[in-house]
């Protein structure tokens, strides 16, 4: 269906046939065409008058960049034409049996965005706050990034972690309670790490020791954590909120020099400690996974546990440790909710971020860096809604709120291309 070169029936042995089949999916071209069509339809059906202002700095900045004003519809039409060109290019490449390179997708995405924002902001009296868009993208992405890192580690070790949502919620809850009782956000953060690791341990006990299906345990753990936290919340946290549920937030700390970089500086380097932890954790996980003995064993256990066992790696122990480390990392994301975002826990406050993280793991092809980028993309799609409401966009807010999910759907269905899960992911290992 989606393959250009169907294997011709021939006399050769099957294995050789398979080896020589080059498959290029046309999904990519289809998605690019569809997105071009969407912007074209918007421009045709709802043309707008006036100019669009993009603001690149806040009033207090050291270096101020003047706001840029562009004619809205003209920019949108230019974007449509360029996007159509790229879509055609993608079809040509597909006909030639070559894959569309990733940077074409990146350029295409930027074009789509520029065109869409120019259209949406046309004629608005307010400026489009670019700095705020960047900073809220990062902030909205923080829990998803941590969740995706944890999910990637778990799957690389051969355990599918659907319980990311539960880990986020449990650690947000524990961070709130411990943070309030001790009065220190640092204690809350440590407790959140432990809570995430504890959920990871339970997941491990059921999937590794009792070999229950990993997806079932993950789903049930989510429900269990939701029920437990909501129960204790209603029963204890609400009546005695000042004792158990009003945390001191981590203060914002500006990094000297870096915080003064135009546009990205205030957005990225005037944040709380958990955001900086994220900047450190992402490369650390990458390094640990690909450049250390621990990472090699982790990946071996996830790809071929029998081979790993044969050379003396303790498969179950490696998996347990991986799940607990992953749980602690997800715990940092959970702590973000109650120690950075707001100063109290709320029922089901993670609201599905863990599932987005799960999608980011798959979208990012089980790689920490790519999964982080995917998480940032979702954060950006969510942040767009806030930016759009500033300029008074004509798109109903519900559709903007829907956007992250539509982007995920398109990403998973269309743009992921060939993705391969770790071979033993989801399979319990039984020692002979």
């Amino acid at each position, binding site marked *: 269906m989606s393959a250009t070169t169907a294997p011709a029936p021939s006399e050769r042995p099957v294995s050789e046939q398979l080896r020589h089949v080059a498959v290029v999916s046309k999904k990519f071209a289809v998605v690019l065409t569809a997105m071009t069509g969407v912007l074209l339809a918007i421009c045709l059906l709802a043309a707008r008058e006036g100019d669009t202002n993009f603001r690149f700095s806040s009033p207090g900045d050291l270096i101020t960049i003047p706001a840029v004003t562009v004619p809205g519809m003209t920019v949108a039409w230019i974007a449509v034409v360029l996007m159509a060109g790229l879509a055609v290019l993608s079809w040509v490449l597909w006909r030639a049996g070559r894959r569309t390179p990733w940077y074409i997708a990146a350029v295409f995405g930027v074009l789509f965005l520029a065109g869409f924002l120019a259209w949406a902001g046309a004629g608005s009296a307010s400026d489009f706050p670019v700095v705020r868009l960047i900073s809220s993208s990062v902030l909205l992405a923080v829990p998803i990034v941590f969740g995706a890192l944890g999910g990637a580690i778990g799957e690389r070790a051969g355990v599918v972690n659907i319980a990311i949502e539960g880990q986020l919620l449990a650690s947000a809850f524990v961070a709130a309670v411990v943070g309030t009782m001790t009065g220190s956000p640092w204690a809350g953060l440590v407790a959140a790490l432990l809570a995430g690791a504890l959920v990871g341990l339970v997941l491990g006990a059921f999937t590794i020791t009792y070999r229950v299906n990993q997806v079932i345990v993950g789903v049930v753990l989510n429900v269990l954590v939701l029920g437990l936290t909501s129960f204790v919340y209603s029963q204890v946290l609400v009546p005695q909120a000042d004792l158990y549920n009003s945390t001191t937030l981590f203060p914002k700390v500006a990094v000297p020099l870096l915080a003064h970089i135009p546009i990205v500086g205030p957005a990225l380097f005037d944040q709380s400690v958990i955001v900086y932890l994220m900047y450190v954790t992402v490369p650390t996980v990458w390094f640990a996974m690909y450049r250390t003995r621990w990472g090699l064993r982790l990946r071996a256990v996830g790809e071929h546990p029998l081979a790993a066992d044969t050379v003396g790696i303790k498969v179950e122990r490696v998996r347990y440790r991986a799940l607990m480390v992953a749980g602690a990392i997800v715990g940092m994301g959970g702590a973000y909710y109650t120690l950075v975002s707001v100063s109290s826990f709320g029922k089901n406050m993670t609201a599905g971020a863990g599932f987005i993280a799960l999608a980011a793991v798959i979208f990012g092809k089980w790689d920490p860096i790519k999964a982080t980028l995917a998480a940032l993309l979702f954060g950006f799609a969510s942040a767009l809604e806030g930016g759009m409401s500033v300029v008074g966009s004509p798109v109903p807010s519900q559709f903007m709120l829907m956007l992250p999910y539509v982007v995920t759907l398109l990403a998973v269905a269309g743009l992921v291309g060939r993705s391969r899960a770790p071979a033993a992911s989801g399979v*319990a290992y039984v020692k002979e």
Partner: protein
Amino acid sequence: MSTTPDPQRETGDAVGPTTDGALAPTAPATPAAAGGPTDRRWSNAVREIVGGSWAVSAGAVILALIAGSIMIVATDETVRGTAAYFFTRPTDMLSAAWEAIRDAYVALFRGAVWDYKADTFAEGIRPITVSLNYATPLIGAGLGLAVGFRAGLFNIGGQGQIIFAAIGAGWIGFAVDMPWPLHMLVAIVAGIAAGALWAGIAGVLKAFTGAHEVITTIMLNNIAYYLLFFMLATPGLLQAPGSANPKTPAMAESAEMPRLLGEAFPLHAGFLLALGAVAVTWWLLERSRLGFAFRAVGENPDAARVAGIDVSRVTIYVMLVSGGLIGVAGVSQVLGHSTTGFSVDVDAGIGFDAITVALLGRSSPIGVLGAGVLFGAFKAGGAQMQAAEAIPIEIVTVIQSLIVLFIAAPPLVRAIFRLPAPGSASKASRRSNKEVAA
């Protein structure tokens, strides 16, 4: 999936008459040759759900209730007060704990089954009809999940499918004018079709791009939620005329499902619809050719493909059927449970509860019926517990999830209750696990 060259494509229509008789004995016995890890994972899941003994289920329920008791005791004000002087007068705390647990479970029973304190017989049996009323959508949605599990698909999209079924049935229910039985039937069919179509999107994506249904159905849930939100906030779509609230108008009386036992009892004809769905699902899975294809794909997609089943097409059919059954839940919500119009929370968590219902019912239609009634009773009793004893209803969620968790881990329950391990069954599962690992 999409990158694998598919020899089946050339032969076209899959579940042809030729495969009908010949397939039956061979397909399930075909050894797993080249199944991907994902596929094996799902067939193992089905085996785990379907296998196992009822003693384990009973043990799991008991364990979960014990855990619930601990939660009640730990958060009870009186118990915490008396715990302060536990070592001087331990009986105070113990009796307070006993009373807290007893009162809670008595309230659960009175809310779910039989209110022995009621003045009249009719009021006494009312709780059980409330339970069955709550059970109705759980049965429907649980069946949808069960069909998916049997075919190796995990449809988490219950929320979105219920929303779409509600939109379909609700719009027919208030915007169209028809006489009674016809109007109701058309609304039911429209709702089921809308649920099936929304699930079908995930099926098509899975079949043609290999996108994992767990991800796509979750995304479709949120998309459906905001679509409904938009429709409810836009005059002329679903919003009640002359109102600013995001709520639909009330259903026309000709579209309502009649109350089965008179106006005093909430039980409505949706329950019969759910029972019918149980029968149809049983027939579909156990006696029909399509259901056989479903199960064959669930057991081993590669073997099914080799045996001549078009796996992509079956995937789409499974999602359609699953979404249609979940649509029964959405329909009964808007035409039976509450006919005064619906808002964004029409799903009421049923889509996710249905997962636990299907797991507890071991994905068999009869099992789902039992599990649905049990969880409906928990829901009705939980509400009574909250009203009478001020115990948050979330405790029911905890108990339900613990039941499923314990049932999924039979060795754990057997170890706790010292139940005998069924030798042959566990050996077989061990052997299959070995194959997987090798």
